């Protein structure tokens, strides 16, 4: 395989990998606080994208994105207030079912609020035809945007969870909710904040990837499944792991295209995930001992 071609496959892998990664990061925030997986995370992306697209028709792009992020994060808070708080002692099974129900509900509401048609935001820099030539291979500037935004989010979350009081309180909730409560942390508010934060990050992700992937009422589910795969691959709760996992899955898929029929692409990435789950459920960057202690 000539070098340019190999590089092009790598770029293609990075393009889809960066999309998976930015979705996976959103999963980690709620997981880090509550220990639950929010199956409706994909719908936050869709909501963010759709809202920004609708707002963009009468305000500039950055403002539309900002407004979409705020609106979606309000939706996240609302979901916590209306649904999650009502669950008294949620088991994992119940949470999985509730969040799946939420995801279906949001999707169907979006179908009736907007319609079945596909939309997208304009490219942040350049247009549909712009591409950057790096050593003979080409990449869209929007991919760099996605990578950049993922990087900023990871850095922000790292600082947030390590150095701010709120961030640390949220982590305390995840490791032992009773102990956290005893330390005077308002655990319920922490859960609300985590929902707002992950909705906001989901919405931002939905806006950044919209020019590449386009946005449709039902685009959330397939993105969420990929994002979930990547989050587990990288180790649940680990944002750096999510980015690395995303790029790995993206690259594997791109390479598989060069030798296998494209039709089985998704089956391959899921099969890899299953193997990892069986062999090392804590993921690539997760701590094995931590996973063993966690109660599921």
């Amino acid at each position, binding site marked *: 395989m000539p070098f340019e071609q190999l590089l092009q496959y790598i770029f293609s892998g990075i393009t889809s990998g960066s999309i998976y990664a930015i979705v996976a990061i959103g999963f980690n925030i709620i997981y880090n606080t509550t220990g639950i997986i929010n199956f409706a995370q994909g719908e936050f992306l869709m909501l963010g994208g759709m809202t920004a697209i609708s707002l963009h028709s009468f305000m500039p792009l950055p403002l539309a994105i900002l407004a979409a992020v705020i609106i979606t994060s309000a939706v996240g808070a609302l979901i916590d207030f209306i649904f999650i708080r009502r669950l008294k002692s949620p088991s994992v099974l119940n949470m999985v079912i509730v969040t*799946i*129900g939420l995801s279906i509900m949001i999707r*169907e509401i979006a179908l009736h609020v907007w319609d079945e048609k596909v939309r997208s935001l304009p490219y942040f820099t350049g247009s549909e035809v712009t591409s950057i030539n790096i050593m003979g291979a080409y990449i869209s500037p929007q991919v760099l945007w996605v990578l950049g935004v993922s990087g900023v989010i990871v850095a922000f979350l790292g600082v947030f969870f390590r150095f701010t009081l709120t961030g640390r309180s949220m982590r305390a909730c995840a490791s032992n909710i009773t102990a956290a409560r005893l330390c005077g942390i308002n655990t319920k508010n922490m859960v609300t904040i985590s929902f707002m934060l992950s909705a906001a990050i989901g919405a931002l992700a939905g806006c950044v990837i919209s020019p590449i992937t386009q946005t449709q009422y039902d685009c959330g*589910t397939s993105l969420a*499944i990929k994002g979930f795969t990547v989050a*587990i691959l990288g180790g649940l709760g680990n944002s750096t792991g999510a980015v690395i996992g995303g790029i790995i899955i993206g690259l594997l898929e791109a390479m598989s295209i060069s030798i296998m029929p494209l039709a089985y692409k998704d089956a391959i990435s899921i099969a890899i995930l299953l193997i990892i*789950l069986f062999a090392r459920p804590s993921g690539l960057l997760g701590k094995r001992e931590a996973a063993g202690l966690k109660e*599921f």
Partner: protein
Amino acid sequence: MRPSVYIPVAVLTACIIAFQIIVSALNREFYLTQLTMSAYYSLVILGLTVLMGYAGQISLGHAAFFAMGGYTTAVLTTYNLAGAAGNPLVKLVVGLGLDTVSTNAYGAQTQHLSPWVSLVVAVCLTAAVAFLIGIPILKLKGHYLAMATLGFGIIVYRIVLGTRMFGEADGISDLPAFRLAGGLAVGGDPGLRVQNYYIAAFLLVAGVILLTNLIDSRPGRALRSIHGSEEAANAMGVNTARYKLSVFVLSAVFACIAGVFLTHFNGGIGPSEAEVMKSVSYVAIVAVGGMANLWGALVMGVVLNYLSLRGYFGSYDEFVFGCILIVIMLFMPEGLLIKENFRILADTAVRIVNKCRAGKQE
């Protein structure tokens, strides 16, 4: 069988027969079509109830087992043996008398494998796959279990969708009828409707009897102990891994049998039967039925599928299922059909009647 089991079973059987007699008398036999389909879907749900409600193991990939049953029989019984008469395997099949001849929709005769053989193949295949995949999957817990079963479902969906043998996106159509013994046949012909209703009902009742007995037996108690606390169960000497695996395989076989029969009844199958959304709707119905409540799951399975298949929810079909999931989980995790709810209903009814009476007296 204990009395507590056979009384409800007798009531169920009576209901089944009464319904048929009533709709036949009213000349409304077409209601039976969707009821037959719902009965097969309820069979999947029954199996899943034991897995989820009693053994406490979630499966977001049960549609895959249904699809494996349906697709196996679809592939095997639509393969025209006459076209490959020279093949030694085909010779063997014909020599053993495992083939049948049917007339297809265009009036032509086709020689194909007997659906009995494909039923056996489908069950064996599904059980083997469930067994092999169950060993590693059931070691996982919580989200990892959910994700792994979901992943398994997606893989089966992708294979079905991407393989020419399975008809890709169009699926497989024009299946022959499944001729059982004595003139009984599973097929879409309107003339077969009443007997198909009874075939489906028979399978459903048989499934209920089998599962209620299982739950009341020693393995059933072991399963409930797993749901309560797996560690404690293990400590008490329950081989949790083995019990979980057996129930997983059993519920997969239930789904597979339902898949085989429904595919012959429908005369075809498409990839939508293997979709994730389908698995989710099975889980939703188990939850509505009250998780560890076979009768609840049975009733809700028949009712909700029936309404959905008749198109009552219109374009809000998925929305309804999403809402059901949330509402049930939030407000009545015990399910809809529990005594308390009936009591509330009765109370309210009595109060309304009393009020009306009071109003009249004034």
